[in-house]
């Protein structure tokens, strides 16, 4: 801590912090427009100038680092005059008719002056009106006139990109957007271009954002102090009625979001500033897609039952009676049930209970793909090794080396990518291991580009080299070390052919990088451990991690994937359920199919006699459904998600259920009651959570009691340390499984869906973005060929 004086007050500030931060922390207000939390100091707006005793001239508080004994004055007549001068200069370039209007006060209330100004000169129609930093500073400095002639810069408004418009006529060149894009997001899609009076924010060669590497995370919108960047969907919306918090369900990270509501509708979602997972950042989905996910036109809003080949709307009671009767009739036959993994923990718990106790069947969880953490846990458990799955995203930024394998985390785990960017900025080494080029490589220290199907061969090679190069007394202490060495040195194991796609020198560079690893982290995408070799791949990744003292983090792809793994202790089915269901249907094993997830592609298979679809959206299942039961989205109910870190996150309903839709758990409970089963008399999600926390020790902290304490709650893990090598098992198949054609590609599509709703189809902007990435990758592949 450093002691200094601001305006005569004694203040203690963290060393390395700026005068501005120190002042703000103690409630001393210094006007500013270009400073922003988490961004590097800029010193461009010159509003935060202060006087420092013993220093010549005026210093910007945002760039001045606190020193012991510093004496700062933030408010003198001269400073006030300078600030007003500067602000007037800013306003001379920014439409300011409303800002300095004498009727401002009345106008706010009665819109009395609205007719007098157009969009160009006034604030009234600006989407930032009421939330604008510039407005605040004008009020704070009490500027009532601008002595300089207005100079409208007359830039064309950029409307060519998805989601938001850019009107740089409103820009004050604080460069917050440029800094957040480069420093925090690692995208560097925008920059200040030109100089002097022509200086502006722009992209390289003035391309649209979509062609300049922008990921449309919206971070620039959120830091912009003016209305230069405006979300298209918010045009004319005005201020929201209220804002509430929620957890984003669109990927496995579960970002904290702040959602603006107006007349019972979601108008906008923004990252929550102090959310533990994402701290003020989101991705394109959390920022721009949430609203359309909830208010999609395909929402099923009323229960429907098929009568004479047509679906007709019915009341809940009638519909549930109908379903209960049908289920009772067929109770002696086996019925299949498929549950979407994207439901809340409470829904899963009840669904499981329903399946076991009411249907007496074994349900399947609808992971659209198999779960990487589940596979790691299962495979290592077979070796009596327990792999910790919990981690904290922000611990990544202190890693010395980060290996990202088979995952394009810029797209699939954008918030983890931010931590990687942070680590790289701090000097960490980044090793990328993918089959195809990704945006990650821009920041990579080294990139291993292997051919599909050669992963095991590469892993064996890396382990062998590390065993050879690391001092023996270091690794020989780990159990089974010799066995591993012998197994790797067996003839035939170590052959590295050209089909791997790498030169030996490349692999040796990777070995060198891994050797000097320091605290290392492996982020493993699901594509790494696919196919029949999955067990051996998991084992060798484990060995490699032990050899470089690294932490292995298998990445969950969907929200609540971790929670579902904990909830289904036997391990959820790993993608094979489709064939089992289709087989079962074909063989007449299942006459009834209850879908609270997606409908498997039935293909030529026989349709079930009775198909219940409980879901949020119309889709393929709708065609052949006998009953449609409208379920709510997460936005309309309370519940709990567990994110990829193992963090337990409670969310509350944002809006009332749309139409007659109901929470999934409620539908299950009412149905069970109608079928005469006890134990389903829950009245709220919290009650379910309470029961769940007692029934499942790993989810103990789900109970409201624990979450209320305000400290982060995590899944409880059984953490017996078990550092032991796993020797490479002999199998008939060689290391490079080329007989498996085609070899599985490591990189998979981003999970852009929510309970069967294809977000890419639904949201035009997202479609444009994903199509761009796809086209880019294809172009690259062509070029490489």
């Amino acid at each position, binding site marked *: 801590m450093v002691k200094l004086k601001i305006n005569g007050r004694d203040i203690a500030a963290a060393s390395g912090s700026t005068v501005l931060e120190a002042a703000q922390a103690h409630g001393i207000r210094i006007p500013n427009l270009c400073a922003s939390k988490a961004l590097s*100091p*800029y*010193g*461009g*707006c*010159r509003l935060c*100038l202060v006087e420092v005793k013993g220093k010549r*001239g*005026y*210093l*910007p508080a945002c*760039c*001045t680092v606190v020193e012991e004994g510093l004496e700062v004055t933030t408010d003198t007549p001269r400073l006030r*005059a*300078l600030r007003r*001068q*500067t602000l007037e*200069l*800013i306003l*001379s*370039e920014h439409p300011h008719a409303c800002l300095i209007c004498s009727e401002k006060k009345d106008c706010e209330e009665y819109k009395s002056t609205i007719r007098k100004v157009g969009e160009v000169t006034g604030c009234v129609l600006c989407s930032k009106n009421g939330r604008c930093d510039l407005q605040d500073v004008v009020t704070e400095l009490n500027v009532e006139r601008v*002595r*300089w*002639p207005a*100079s409208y810069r007359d830039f064309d408004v950029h409307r060519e990109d998805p989601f938001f418009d850019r009107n740089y006529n409103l820009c*004050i*060149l604080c*460069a917050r957007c440029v800094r957040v894009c480069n420093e925090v997001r690692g995208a560097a899609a925008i*920059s*200040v271009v*030109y*100089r*002097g*009076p*022509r*200086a502006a924010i722009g992209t390289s060669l003035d391309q649209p954002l979509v062609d300049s590497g922008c990921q449309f995370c919206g971070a620039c919108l959120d830091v912009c102090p003016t209305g230069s960047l405006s979300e298209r969907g918010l045009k004319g919306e005005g201020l929201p009625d209220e804002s509430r918090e929620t957890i984003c369900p669109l990927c496995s990270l579960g970002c904290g979001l702040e959602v603006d509501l107006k007349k019972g509708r979601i108008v906008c979602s923004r990252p929550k500033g102090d959310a533990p997972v994402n701290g003020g950042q989101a991705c394109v989905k959390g920022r721009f897609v949430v609203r359309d996910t909830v208010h999609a036109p395909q929402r099923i809003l009323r229960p429907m039952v098929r009568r004479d080949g047509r679906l007709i709307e019915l009341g809940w009671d009638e519909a549930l009676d109908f379903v209960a009767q049908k289920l009772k009739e067929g109770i002696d036959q086996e019925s299949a049930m498929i549950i979407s993994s994207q439901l809340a923990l409470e829904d899963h718990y009840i669904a499981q209970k329903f399946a076991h106790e009411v249907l007496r069947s074994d349900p399947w969880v609808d992971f659209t793909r198999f779960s990487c953490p589940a596979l790691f846990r299962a495979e290592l458990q077979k070796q009596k090794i327990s792999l910790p799955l919990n981690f904290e995203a922000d611990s990544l930024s202190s890693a010395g080396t980060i290996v990202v394998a088979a995952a394009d985390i810029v797209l699939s785990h954008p918030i983890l990518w931010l931590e990687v960017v942070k680590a790289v900025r701090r000097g960490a080494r980044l090793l990328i291991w993918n089959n195809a080029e990704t945006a990650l490589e821009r920041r990579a220290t080294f990139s291993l580009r292997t051919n599909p199907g050669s992963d095991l061969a590469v892993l064996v090679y890396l382990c062998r080299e590390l065993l050879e190069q690391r001092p023996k007394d270091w690794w020989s202490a780990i159990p089974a070390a010799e066995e591993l060495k012998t197994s790797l040195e067996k003839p035939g194991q170590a052959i590295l052919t050209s089909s791997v796609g790498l030169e030996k020198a490349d692999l040796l560079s990777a070995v060198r990088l891994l050797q000097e690893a320091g605290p290392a982290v492996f982020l493993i995408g699901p594509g790494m451990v696919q196919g029949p070799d999955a067990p051996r791949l998991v084992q060798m990744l484990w060995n490699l991690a032990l050899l470089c003292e690294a932490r292995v983090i298998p990445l969950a792809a969907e929200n609540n994937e971790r929670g579902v793994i904990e909830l289904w202790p036997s391990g959820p089915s790993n993608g094979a359920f489709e064939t089992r269901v289709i087989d079962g249907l074909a063989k007449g094993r299942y006459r009834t199919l209850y879908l609270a997830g997606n409908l498997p592609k039935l293909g030529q298979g026989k349709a079930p006699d009775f198909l219940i679809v409980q879901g949020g959206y119309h889709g393929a299942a709708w065609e052949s459904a006998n009953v449609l039961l409208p379920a709510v989205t997460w936005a309309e109910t309370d519940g709990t998600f567990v994110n990829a870190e193992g963090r337990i996150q409670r969310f509350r309903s944002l809006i009332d259920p749309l139409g007659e839709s109901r929470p999934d758990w409620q539908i299950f409970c009412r149905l069970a009651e109608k079928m005469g089963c006890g134990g389903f008399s829950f009245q709220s999600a919290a009650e379910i959570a309470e029961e769940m926390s007692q029934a499942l020790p790993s989810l103990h902290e789900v109970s409201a009691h624990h979450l209320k304490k305000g400290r982060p709650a995590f899944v409880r893990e059984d953490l017996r340390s078990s550092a032991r090598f796993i020797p490479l098992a002999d199998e008939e198949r060689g290391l490079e499984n080329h007989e498996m054609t085609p070899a599985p590609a490591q990189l998979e599509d981003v999970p852009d869906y929510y309970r069967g709703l294809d977000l890419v189809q639904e949201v035009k902007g997202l479609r444009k973005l994903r199509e761009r990435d796809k086209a880019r990758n294809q172009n690259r592949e062509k070029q490489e060929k």
Partner: protein
Amino acid sequence: MKRLTDPSQLAAWKTSLGEERQARQKTIVVSNGTCGQASGSLAIIEAFGREIEKRALQASVGLEITGCHGFCEREPNIVIYPEGIFYGPLVPDDIPKIVDQTILKNKVIGALVYKDPKTGRAFGLQKEIPFYRKQMRLLTGDNLRIDATRIEDYILADGYQALTKALFDMTADEVIHEIDAAGLRGRGGAGFPTGKKWQFCRNETADRRYIVCNADEGNPGTYMDRSILVANPHSVIEGMIIGAYAIGAAEGYIYVRMEAPHAVKQVTIARDLARKHGLLGKSILGSEFHFDLHIVEGAGAYICGEETSLMTSIEGYRAVSRQRPPFPAQAGLWGKPTNINNVETWANVPLIVRQGAEWYSQIGTAKSKGTKVFSLVGKIRNGGQVEVPMGIRLREIIYDIGGGIRDGKKFKAVQTGGPGGGFLPAEFLDLPIDYDSLVQAGSTMGSGGMIVLDETTCMVDLARHYMHFTQEESCGKCVPCRVGTKQIHDILVRITRGEGEEEDLEQIEELAEAVKEASLCGLGQSAPNPVLSSLRHFRGEYLEHIKHKRCPARACRELVSSSQQEARKRKHG
């Protein structure tokens, strides 16, 4: 000659080179700087080459091609040694005559020597010409005998002697002490004591340090640095090696203005020659000191010459200033302690180390030591690059060296310090010029531009011109500089069009003060100086524009034409 691995090899080489030069009977030196080339020196060189070949004089007559000698008004010119006869300006047809008469018969051709335009007196020898006589050419004197593409010429002119002395006879601290004791101040404009600056950088703890030569000379009408780099790049390189040794840097950068391709070429050749001969790179002259130089071409903006912008530009980013502190000495290139000096400052270093601080500190005034190179341009009779001791009076530069105002017009003022400097009207003609006196007089030394103005220059229009320049060249980062200069400029435009009001002047002064105090870097902090200075000395001229809609210098087109129109109206009306 191969790599030098011992200082004695350098000395031996110098001796043998001296003997070679002695063997020649005559040497013709052609001034071939940028100004020379623009006036046709290449044709002169060609003509001499042909003539020497035709008469088979290769053995007895040397032809040396050098950088600018300073007398830009008289280009292309030559000096013939050993006598030092000056001829210029020349055309190729003069060459056979010169070879016939002067080279072969030792006769001075009266028609080609310099004649004083006022008195008509002829001067045969270069050193007698008034333009040179009052100068003290310590840095630029050797330009007469140095072909920058030949390291031999520089070695013959005592080159790399200072380096030998520093590396083998002095400790790093002694070098810094010497520079400090000499009283050398930064020639880039601010005049910060160089020795102190070096010491700051050396005092920082860091795993590496950098040194930088700022050769991004962008002030309008200045060409001192370019001339030095073209004519004598080795002096800068030698200065930098010594500086690197003193500061403890292993890498240096010369950031040269891209718009001075001749300088880029010459300094690159010189750097490569120094590398080849073991004066750069590992184990310089066989010592344990390693240092290498990179040459970076400027990014084409005036702001690149500002030190923090220059560093961001070297790092590969768009040149944008950043707040100081931290100063470059604390966190410069890539966040490492960095010492930045201007070309002329570096060129002074070998001189001080070789001749000693005591000798150096006798030149100049109490607080400003040594000489200063100026670019004398504008409405002056003998424009050129002049080097004078600090403390010389403005009158001596303008009238004795520069020969007075061109076309018999009246002296009005001289502008110094570039776009961040000010004006000195006639009352300051007897001002002894050094860093502090210029600041007191409301101007600055700047990097050494000296633009002479006569009665036909309108001060309002010139102030407008400077504001136009600075607002165009502001990097755009901070508000006062980006918008403030533009607003001042717009007001000045109005005044020159006869649309000014009296309140405008107060408004300009108020805004100018705010821009100076609130701007982020030196560019903005000094941008309003020309306006403020012209307001201070020539307020009447502004008022004339505003009140009577008249431009006394008849330079503001709108006012001149409208008053003429009115006159015409009256005549015919």
